[in-house]
């Protein structure tokens, strides 16, 4: 079930009304929210619910054992086992085909080709997100940052439908305290929630899907058929598309949670305003950046082991970040590019002085370049795309609407103030009936732009 869909439009008002009706009685609210979240997830595939339940049970069992374990060594072993189990689940469902395919190809090249058990395994939507949240829980329990939650609280945390499919990655210590007591019915950010939902819809359906339809998808499908001006525009177009697609989903997720009384961490802060790779990762998919920092980069040694060790840790972290996005060499290369950018930035720190706008310009175009690797369906397509970048020819896809869509996405992030906060503050003072009318008008207009096949899936659903 995707947020911008009729089934969700039927599902959410019912869940919201019952949720607030039961809020004062956690003993009823929690089972209800758990059931609602599983119904939401079952729409993607009922069998996936078994996997979610299995991950929940295994990690809760591990968390309880970790909290009762005596001795640091025993606790570490339990944490390691739980993390290994989560990574095994992720590996089987997300990377099995990739690795077996690569192995078969390598053996074939060596003349040792043998039939390998190449199974077709369906990728459960959201598996990357809920396994990461489970890892954050058991590790935080192991570090004694978080107490083990009750089974019911942990199950609600892991399956809570606004963040279940594509994040943001909410840490246990950010969410479980909110489950400890009923949400205050007199302190709800309704205006912010509604404005985020409306903004997310506009970003996803009007901007991201439009750019994908008229510009990005055709060019990335057959870059050979396009000349330099169109190729260049498609690169900028995808830069705008992926931001609007993913941050649009996040906006809706945060907005829906706000209406239910819950707060999620922020996931984006004008990422195309960044003046360096480090700055970019503090603004783009912030919850993943924090996860990678706290559960991968720092455990690897962070920047404590000298210059070369820091570079190694940065590269490992970003290579795995690339692989997390998808089982393909394009994602690995994308991660390597960002790793190299971070290493270079670290190495050159303080040695190069440049005006802020130059730093921004360079960073922005390096990010645009990296998105080409991210979007291309294969390294071959990425190569063709890049080789056509300077091919002379007509600009067949340059239209005022496309240029305006890209410009709006980028320029709004460069403004010295955040327009969204201003809008949220204005909407917070509006009456609920007026907010409802406004949201309906936005949905009607957004709905009119949906093509006959419906809203395409969010890009991050694949991850």
């Amino acid at each position, binding site marked *: 079930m995707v947020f911008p869909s009729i089934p969700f439009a039927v599902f959410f008002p019912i869940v919201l009304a019952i949720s607030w009706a039961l809020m004062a009685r956690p003993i009823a609210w929690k089972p209800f929210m758990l059931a609602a979240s599983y119904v939401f997830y079952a729409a993607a595939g009922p069998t996936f619910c078994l996997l979610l339940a299995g991950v929940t049970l295994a990690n809760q069992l591990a968390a309880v054992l970790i909290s009762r374990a005596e001795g640091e060594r025993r606790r570490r072993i339990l944490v390691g086992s739980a993390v290994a189990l989560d990574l095994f689940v992720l590996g089987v469902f997300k990377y099995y085909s990739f690795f077996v395919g690569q192995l078969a190809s390598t053996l074939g090249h060596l003349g040792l080709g043998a039939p390998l058990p190449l199974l077709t395994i369906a990728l459960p939507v959201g598996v990357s997100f809920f396994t990461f949240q489970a890892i954050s829980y058991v590790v935080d329990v192991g570090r004694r940052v978080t107490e083990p939650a009750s089974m019911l609280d942990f199950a609600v945390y892991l399956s809570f439908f606004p963040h279940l499919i594509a994040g943001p990655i909410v840490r246990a210590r950010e969410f479980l305290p909110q489950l400890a007591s009923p949400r205050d019915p007199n302190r*709800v950010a309704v205006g912010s929630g509604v404005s985020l939902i409306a903004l997310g819809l506009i970003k996803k359906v009007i901007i991201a899907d439009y750019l994908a339809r008229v510009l990005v998808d055709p060019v990335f499908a057959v870059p050979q058929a396009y000349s330099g001006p169109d190729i260049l525009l498609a690169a900028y177009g995808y830069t705008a598309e992926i931001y609007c697609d993913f941050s649009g989903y996040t906006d809706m997720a945060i907005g829906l949670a706000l209406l239910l009384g819950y707060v999620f961490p922020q996931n984006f802060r004008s990422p195309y305003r960044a003046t360096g790779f480090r700055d970019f990762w503090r603004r783009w998919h912030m919850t993943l950046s924090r996860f990678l920092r706290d559960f991968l980069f720092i455990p690897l040694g962070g920047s404590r082991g000298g210059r070369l060790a820091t570079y190694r840790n940065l590269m490992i972290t970003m290579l795995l970040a690339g692989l997390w996005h998808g089982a393909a060499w394009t994602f690995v290369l994308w991660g390597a590019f960002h790793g190299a950018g971070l290493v270079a930035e670290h190495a050159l720190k303080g040695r190069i002085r440049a005006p802020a706008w130059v730093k921004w310009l360079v960073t922005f175009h390096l990010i645009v370049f990296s998105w080409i690797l991210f979007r291309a369906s294969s390294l071959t397509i990425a190569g063709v795309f890049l080789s056509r970048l300077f091919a002379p020819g007509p600009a067949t896809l340059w239209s005022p609407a496309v240029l305006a869509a890209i410009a709006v996405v980028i320029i709004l992030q460069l403004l010295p103030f955040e327009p969204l906060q201003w809008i949220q503050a204005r909407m917070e003072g509006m009456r609920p009936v007026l907010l409802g009318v406004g949201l309906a008008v936005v949905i009607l207009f957004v709905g009119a732009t949906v093509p006959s*096949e419906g809203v395409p899936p969010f890009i991050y659903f694949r991850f």
Partner: protein
Amino acid sequence: MPSDTPPRDDDSLMNRFERSGMRRARGRDAVLCILVAAAILVLFEGSAVRRAGEETSGGVGRSVLLAVGRPTTWIADHLPLHKAGTNATSWLEPEQNLGGGAFATPGTAAGGVPAVTADAFEPEAIGAKPPPRRRLHTLLVTGDSMSMPLDDYLAQRLDPKGVHVIEDPHIGTGISSTLIVNWGKLAVAQVREDHPEAVVVFIGANDGYSMPAPDGREVSCCDAEWAAIYANRVRAMANTYRQAGRARVYWITLPTPREPARQEIARAVNAAIEVAVQPWADQVRLINSVPVFTPGAVYRDAMPIDGTETIVREADGVHLNEAGSSLLAKIVTGRMEHDFYF
């Protein structure tokens, strides 16, 4: 470019709504707001719930959507708001930009005389220099059962040359009936999914169904009014397939069938196709199969191929058999070589 990264102690910004003083409404306000929005949507688009239910493939979800959709449809159908909403937002419909890919009831053009553009002329036909040929990477072959086994023969010819041939026949379907497949929507989906640089369309064997006129009347086959409605649908599809001029379309007319009743339909279909593709003659190529297989629109089972009388039609008197399809594939690839190399 200022750098205003968040402080390390609150890098998840969990308190951002507290800090801005934004959490000041009540839970019941949230419910009221969403219910008001839902109510308005039911008034304007209540029938969308039932449609979503009908498009859902079985299960509890379908039953729930249909159960909710019945009353919401009833409400929306008894109010004039749906039409008002559609009128207010129709300028945003994406299919309009694709040339009405999903079949709307065809209407007349807006006031004024439609402009003739350069796309209506094949450069070669007027002695102008044609654009350079491009390499063909992806070819879509689609249509009803007429496109089989033509699609196989095209794949046999082009696959070895590195062309990715997508065979997408939809047996038993027609442009005049949207009951099984809405070809307007299907064309949009095909283009969205495959982005073919060239499209071969061969369809019409199952057509002849009555279609709605702009004023809602059902128009039966095969007078000029029916042909006009059919031509509008073909034009919408052709416009989708040509992808704003980036792709080339090869639309094959129907060879005359054996049965007189079917001949009447085929005549109307072919006439409609000829009219439909006129605005984009440079991009939508008409491949007229009538002079090849049925000269003078007179049905024949066999014809001379390489000096030998060869049966080219199936026993049903409608479809081309293996030999006929093979010959047609040769003609189509020959025409494609004007635009592409492979």
